């Protein structure tokens, strides 16, 4: 491979950066493999954990929110409703949390060798996407079981929009994770807040209640939270139930793009000098 590069105090051009990442695809592949396998290395149940987590969460939610709190689920079987919300949410939350540790978690490596730093978040996102797809398969298995038993689930052609929604989750998670990881280079406070913040955010994201249940005067809050539209759209396209206001989704896409662009910009600004302040 012919490697030639220029480093300048002024910023580099972004097209060269994309090429740079492509040159390091072997590393990207290796990191994905590592992350994916190390996820269940030294565990007894191994890959089963990918399944246990969402299924157990959905079961607990069905009991607590369905049976005790009696929250409605848009006529969907509670288990499917909660599981679909949980897997999308944990996909997003993992993207944010893992990416936000890019700089702090790889200090030792970053101080010794160069490679495009963006390779790390991308590998994390891809690993999470793979985990998510496994969980999605499990969800589909459960959907089939429920459909056979006559539940009002109606998957149809709208499923083709699903990849777009996943792309939106990726962009939002990557963008936000990049913003946090860039800020934590100087201030560690944010890392303290990430785990806690994501938990609070989940409560405002329609994971265990449908949007239709929220009083009209608070609907604007949900409109500003891009994850609400994402989860609602996910249920709508996959399960064919509920409805989505197109303008609300467009707002969430706009917010997502804003966050993604900001995140990538901040990441690029930090990656060149981050070793100076750790």
């Amino acid at each position: 491979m012919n490697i030639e590069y220029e480093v300048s105090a002024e910023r580099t051009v972004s097209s060269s950066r994309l090429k740079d990442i492509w040159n390091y695809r072997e590393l990207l592949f290796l990191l994905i493999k590592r992350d994916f396998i190390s996820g269940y290395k030294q565990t007894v149940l191994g890959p089963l954990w990918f399944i246990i987590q969402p299924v157990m969460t959905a079961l607990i939610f069905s009991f607590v929110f369905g049976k005790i709190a009696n929250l409605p689920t848009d006529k969907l079987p509670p288990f499917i409703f909660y599981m679909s919300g949980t897997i999308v949410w944990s996909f997003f939350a993992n993207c944010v949390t893992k990416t936000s540790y890019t700089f702090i978690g790889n200090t030792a490596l970053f101080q010794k060798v160069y490679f495009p730093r963006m390779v790390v978040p991308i590998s994390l996102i891809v690993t999470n996407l793979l985990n998510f797809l496994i969980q999605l398969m499990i969800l589909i298995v459960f959907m089939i079981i429920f459909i056979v038993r006559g539940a009002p689930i109606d998957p149809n052609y709208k499923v083709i929009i699903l990849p777009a929604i996943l792309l939106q989750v990726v962009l939002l998670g990557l963008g936000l994770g990049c913003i946090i990881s860039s800020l934590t280079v100087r201030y560690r406070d944010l890392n303290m807040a990430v785990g806690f913040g994501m938990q609070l955010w989940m409560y405002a994201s329609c994971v265990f209640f449908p949007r239709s249940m929220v009083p009209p005067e608070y609907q604007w809050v949900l409109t500003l939270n891009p994850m609400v539209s994402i989860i609602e759209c996910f249920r709508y396209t996959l399960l064919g139930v509920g409805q989505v206001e197109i303008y609300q989704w467009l707002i969430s896409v706009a917010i997502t793009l804003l966050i993604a662009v900001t995140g990538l910009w901040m990441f690029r600004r930090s990656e060149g000098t981050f070793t100076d302040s750790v």
Partner: protein
Amino acid sequence: MPAVIEAHNLSKRYYLGEINQDAFFEDINRRARQIYRRLRNRETAPLQNGREFWALKGVSLEINQGETLAIIGSNGAGKSTLLKILSRITKPTTGNLTVRGRMASLLEVGTGFHPEFTGRDNIYLNGAILGLKKAEIQTRFDQIVEFSELGEFIDVPVKRYSSGMYIRLAFSVAANLNPEIMILDEVLAVGDTAFQQKCINRVQEIIREGHAAIMVSHSMNAMRQMADKCLWLKNGEVRMFGNIDEVATEYENETMHVAKAPEKESIVHFIDWAITGEKSGENHTLSSQFNPVEFSIRCDLKIPLTEGSVMFALVDAQTLQILCHRTDIGNQPAGRLTLKIRLPQLPIRIGSYKLQCTFLEGGHALDVLWATPELVVASSDSTSKGGQRGILDVPAEVLISRNE
């Protein structure tokens, strides 16, 4: 063929001080002023910060294929900062840099190893970091393992390695993945002597293949052995850049003067020394190791000796005494004297050596005298093709016989 590394006007600014609430408000304040100025369309003056520190100031350099650059300078001169910028670990504050070729850096001890990975996985990880394909790594895998002498430990996570094993693997990976440019920061000082020599040989091989190397080492001998060019950094600035012998000699002269402490109450004062007799070349430079040589050391004895003796020693850059000779001098009155040390020949390698004289009285050491400047052995008469290794430079003869 353009230079493999071209750097112009590289500078690096660091901010010192702790990051806390004050720093946070300071940051906000600076940003706000910056935005205000930009809105008012004023020139954004460089934001001053009381705790800034320039680790590197306007450094330019150029390295061509097959060249080895040594970077020298005292602690804190900016050597490591420069290496970090060259290997893209951090961005320069000003200036620009062009690198043509794949670069392998060994910064400080160890390289980019993942502690949880086995040695095997780390070889692949490092290869990928260098931008190699899996197949390319596979073809060199056995070579790397063999070079590292790790044997079965290759399948043990590197977190369980000893520091020697760690550096052996690090070096083997970097040296055997065919980098076009190698950066070595003090790595040759670790590991046992045998492995060190193996590393030096390997680096020389890499250079002979037409690749470039940059090295930082505190062993001036190793640098003289391997480097062609030398960059001397002082307080972040280039003090001197040029041929290794010139720069290294100048550096040694200057640092020797700095190291000369204010004279304490000593028994023997050193005045000066020179190569006398059949001298060829400069007063402190030996250019022919196989001819008789005479050192004249002038000194001032403060007290008379009755049962005196003098021990003359030559010390190399690794503080190894390579020659030591004790002579009784009996009764000596106080006052100036000249010691003449005659040797039939001095077959030692190219490099710089310290002359040391210890004065003894009745077997007890009184005072040690270090002669300055150092003795420089400049050229080799030997026809040996073994490179410039070892301590002695003796024209040996090797004959082969077969008993069949």
